[in-house]
């Protein structure tokens, strides 16, 4: 069973993980996302770029139903993960979010120890049978987030005591600890200095081996560096979506060209 899935995955490495069709999002009367179709491939990094307020973060939050926590927000259309409609009534948003992890713009470690921060997800979802397994998951997640060597001697000290870059990597470790299939990142580097940014970008590239990553970013250099596919949003519309190289070197839409050359923003 396990072998079959693995074999299956390699064969379809570039298969679509998420399919969105005709997605509309309303905040009260404000039409924030207008008829967006996107296919997000498995084990790739997809970047969402666009000027502020263009709806890229809103769309990202549709993918793990985080918009459900905002009472005035309404989502229409169809979003499928592995062919399953995530807005179906039978889907439990809480379970969905364990499969679709998220990292936020500002590092938001919980007021708990480093260990408890990472163990939070596995604990609430009952992913481990005993303490030893939990220890293992925590160590693996921290290693994946390239933080293990820095914090292994102080796992019991508070997560809020780390530096900004470390906090963000802790949040990434926390998100990967539940072994999600998709990792959503909402401007994960905007509160970080260049060195921490470089570390997180390197990390994103490594995470691609196991997850499909969707990253919202304001930095076009960052999109070009880390992503394989890029989607350009403008005023709630998906203007252009394609291979990152093509978007940056040979955009088809004049608005995309205007944005990446700095004429609109």
């Amino acid at each position: 069973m396990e072998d079959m899935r693995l074999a299956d995955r390699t064969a379809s490495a570039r298969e679509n993980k998420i399919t969105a069709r005709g997605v509309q999002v309303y905040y009260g009367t404000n039409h924030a996302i207008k008829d967006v179709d996107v296919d997000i491939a498995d084990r790739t990094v997809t970047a969402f770029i666009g000027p502020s307020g263009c709806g890229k973060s809103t769309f990202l939050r549709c993918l793990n139903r985080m918009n459900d926590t905002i009472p005035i927000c309404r989502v229409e259309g169809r979003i499928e993960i592995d062919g399953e409609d995530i807005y179906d009534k039978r889907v439990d948003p809480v379970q969905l979010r364990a499969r679709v992890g998220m990292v936020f713009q500002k590092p938001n470690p919980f007021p708990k120890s480093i260990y408890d921060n990472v163990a939070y997800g596995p604990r609430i979802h009952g992913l481990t049978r005993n303490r030893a397994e939990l220890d293992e998951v925590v160590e693996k997640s921290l290693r994946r987030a390239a933080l293990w060597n820095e914090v292994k001697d102080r796992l019991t000290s508070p997560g809020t005591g780390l530096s900004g870059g470390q906090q963000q990597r802790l949040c990434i470790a926390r998100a990967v600890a539940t072994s999600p299939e998709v990792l959503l990142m909402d401007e994960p580097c905007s509160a970080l200095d260049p060195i921490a940014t470089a570390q997180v970008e390197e990390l994103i590239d490594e995470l691609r081996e196991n997850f499909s990553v969707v990253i919202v970013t304001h930095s076009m250099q960052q999109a070009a560096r880390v992503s394989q596919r890029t989607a350009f949003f403008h005023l709630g519309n998906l203007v252009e979506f394609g291979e990152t190289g093509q978007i940056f070197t040979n955009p088809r839409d004049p608005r995309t060209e205007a944005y990446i050359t700095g004429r609109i923003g």
Partner: protein
Amino acid sequence: MNIAVLVLIVLAISAAGYVLGRHRALSGAQGDRRNLHSLIGYYGQTVFLFASVPALFLLAVWLFLQPMLIEARVGAMIQPSDIPEGGSATLVMSDVRRLAEGLDAAIASGAVTEEALAGLQAGDAELGSLLSDAGVALGAELRPNVLEAAKAYRSDSHGARLALTAAVIAVSLVGALLSLLRVSPEYRARNVFERFVLAALIASSLVAVLTTAGIIASLLFESIHFFQLYPAKDFFLSLTWNPQFRGGSDLGIWPLLWGTLYVSFVALIFAVPVGLLIAIYLSEYASKRLRTFAKPAIEILAGIPTIVYGLFALITVGPLLRDYFAQPLGLGTSSASVMTAGLVMGIMLIPFVSSLSDDIINAVPQSLRDGSFAIGATQSETVRQVILPAALPGIVGAILLAASRAIGETMIVVMGAGAAAKLDLNPFQAMTTITVKIVSQLTGDTEFASPETLVAFALGMMLFLFTLVLNVLALVVVRKYREQYE
């Protein structure tokens, strides 16, 4: 001169200073206000402040000290023999003040002249009619020393008032002149004004701190007085409270302290969980519309006067507990009980705990909630594992605040818990608290000389120390958790 007129004069001088300050600054800058260091208004304001604030401050201090100094001087004129049997020096002093006012009124109405007044003697019939015309009724016979003291009081007051007027006006003028002389285009009036603002802010905070210090000092002073009359050992160690106004009372604090703690404990056991759950519901679950409606509705509870809660305890809760719990269980027959007072006080404390905790929970950053939801936590998991730990220092503070409220509460306990000072574990027994006993020791026709009345100050001191310890504890707890969580 009338104080109001004096204040007006000072303000007039200051206003003139304002105009002159502006003018002088502007003329120094050749009429171009851009050459000034500060906005032109600041120059006027600086002169205004230097002319008014020191003068008004002097006025306030003088008015505060003057009666004390004069009474000390005049009081020396009264011999021990002038004090009637059973009276006291303070009563005679108030007679002196009334007499002096009567004489003032008599002169003001033109019934007598200053010269005639100086010749009046204590036995004169004319004096009696003068004073009764002025509305001052003489009690016992007027002693010559008292009349002389009243005359001295009058002349001292008049002299002092004259000196006061001269001094205040002089200070105002000097302040205005000195600050005017300093005004030039380079003068940093803005910065001077800033320092004035700082001084005003510090002075305001000092008022609060000094008042606290004054209250503590008076409590301490009277408590020391009490311990001179009554052995401290008995107060702190005796287990009976049995005041006798004939003397020979037992004034042990333990039954009262126990009652206070027991009632507060019952109140908190009831109020903290309910209040906390309300706060969690309001801040995390309730819709915005419900919240705007429910929060004020709960806070109405805090606006109900405690005497009304007391009535509720006396008429409703007490008999209910007695008939359905205490009597069937054989625990007591009294409707006034620790349970009654505790429950009703708990209801009173609910809005304290819920409102404060609600604010604190709302202050937990939304990013923490998002982070928890994004991992797939449910709402209650988020509340238990992320929000409550983050809000804990504040919640502990809210609970301790409610606890000091409970310890200081009087009315509900008077009407709900009774007045019997007992050491008992049974919550359906009537007990009493420190606050109730302070009230009962001080009501009625008493004088502050016997241990039975002075004990109230010692009790008050204990109450104060108790809430102080609670507050310090709250600070320590909050700091400890803050270190852990930030």
